[in-house]
């Protein structure tokens, strides 16, 4: 094999990656360009929030409750060794508000709402509905994609704060009602250690970023899916994988930016 032949796959691979990055960027720019038209026809956004947000409440609430329960129990076993079981509320709150709330919500969101977005748009494409829209001089980007994009971005932070709230209430049930940690110090230590803007606010900013990332990935995969049953299946799988990885990577970056030690 000549050196030139050995170089070719590397070059091809690099160009492929760059091309896909470029397509993503252009798609993102297109989406942003069509957001105003979605806001103009707000009833489309409302319908999407209903589909994405309302239908996710049950899974988010159930997961939040379970995470709150388990976190409180495990933390209690560790903390009671040092006689610090009253800090339980603080630890559970910080863990939920800063990390688990936004991240777990985003992962569930990718599984619950992202997949349905991808499959829906992929099937629309496979059924040539998108092409039919274009024939009627309706831009599917502004009619189909943009309302879903806005709906996802609005829904995610709401779901994340719901997750954190229910998690904290779950921890309260386990710690105070079942184990018998003092309710007063449970809340007061929590209140003295959690900052509204630095912790709660940053958590909401995080979930907003995750909302943008997850919805964008789901829409892109659906729109670029091969118009076959197999293509839609692959696109749906890729949505979950890519959104999860994107959320975890983004989370690390955002955490490093937001919660540097004073």
């Amino acid at each position: 094999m000549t050196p030139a032949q050995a170089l070719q796959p590397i070059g091809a691979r690099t160009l492929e990656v760059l091309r896909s990055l470029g397509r993503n960027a252009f798609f993102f720019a297109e989406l942003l360009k069509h957001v105003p038209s979605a806001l103009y026809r707000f009833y489309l956004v409302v319908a999407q929030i209903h589909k994405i947000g309302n239908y996710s409440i049950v899974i988010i609430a159930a997961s939040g409750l379970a995470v709150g329960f388990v976190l409180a129990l495990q933390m209690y076993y560790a903390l009671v060794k040092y006689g610090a079981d009253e800090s339980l509320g603080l630890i559970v709150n910080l863990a939920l508000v800063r990390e688990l709330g936004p991240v777990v919500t985003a992962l569930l969101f990718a599984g619950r709402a992202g997949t349905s977005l991808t499959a829906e748009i992929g099937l629309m494409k496979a059924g040539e509905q998108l092409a039919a829209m274009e024939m009627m001089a309706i831009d599917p980007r502004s009619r189909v994609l943009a309302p879903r994009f806005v709906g996802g971005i609005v829904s995610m932070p709401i779901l994340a704060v719901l997750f954190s709230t229910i998690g904290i209430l779950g921890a309260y049930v386990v710690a105070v009602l079942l184990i018998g940690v003092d309710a007063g110090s449970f809340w007061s230590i929590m209140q003295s250690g959690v900052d509204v803007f630095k912790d709660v606010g940053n958590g909401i900013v995080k979930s907003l970023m995750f909302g943008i990332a997850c919805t964008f990935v789901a829409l892109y995969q659906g729109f670029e899916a091969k118009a076959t049953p197999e293509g839609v299946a692959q696109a749906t799988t890729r949505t979950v994988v890519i959104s999860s990885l994107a959320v975890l990577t983004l989370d690390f970056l955002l955490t490093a930016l937001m919660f540097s030690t004073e």
Partner: protein
Amino acid sequence: MTRKNIEILVGLFVLVGALCVVFLALQAANLASFKVGRSYTLTASFDNVGGLKVRAPVRSAGVTVGRVADIALDTKTFQGVVSMEIEQRFVFPRDTSAKILTAGLLGDQYVGLEPGGDDKNLAQGDAIRLTQSAVVLENLIGQFLYNKAAEGPPPNAKK
């Protein structure tokens, strides 16, 4: 489902989100303790502020009466200047002294105010004169070693 029903459900969803934010801000974080009524500012200069942080509590007789608002270095005296916001309803005599104390053995540091006996009270912008710095463990150990060395060798050291 009609559009009206959907709008009602989405409104409910957004309302639930808003309620959650209110819960997180008021019950599970410190928003309630932010604006506890009007406050006035006092300053105190310490030789060493130790590990004191902004928003650390200011306590008198163990009761929290305010928060540390700002910590700065005075480049003329090379002392740490701590500004404290004290709630309006608490007034202290002018010869009140301030100490930097530690809650528990390893806890966070806070400012302790010990009231004096003056009949005039501290007002907005006043400085507390009598201060006692934070205890720095290294200095304490250093001083201990120095005192031990100054004592000379123990009398029965040659055996």
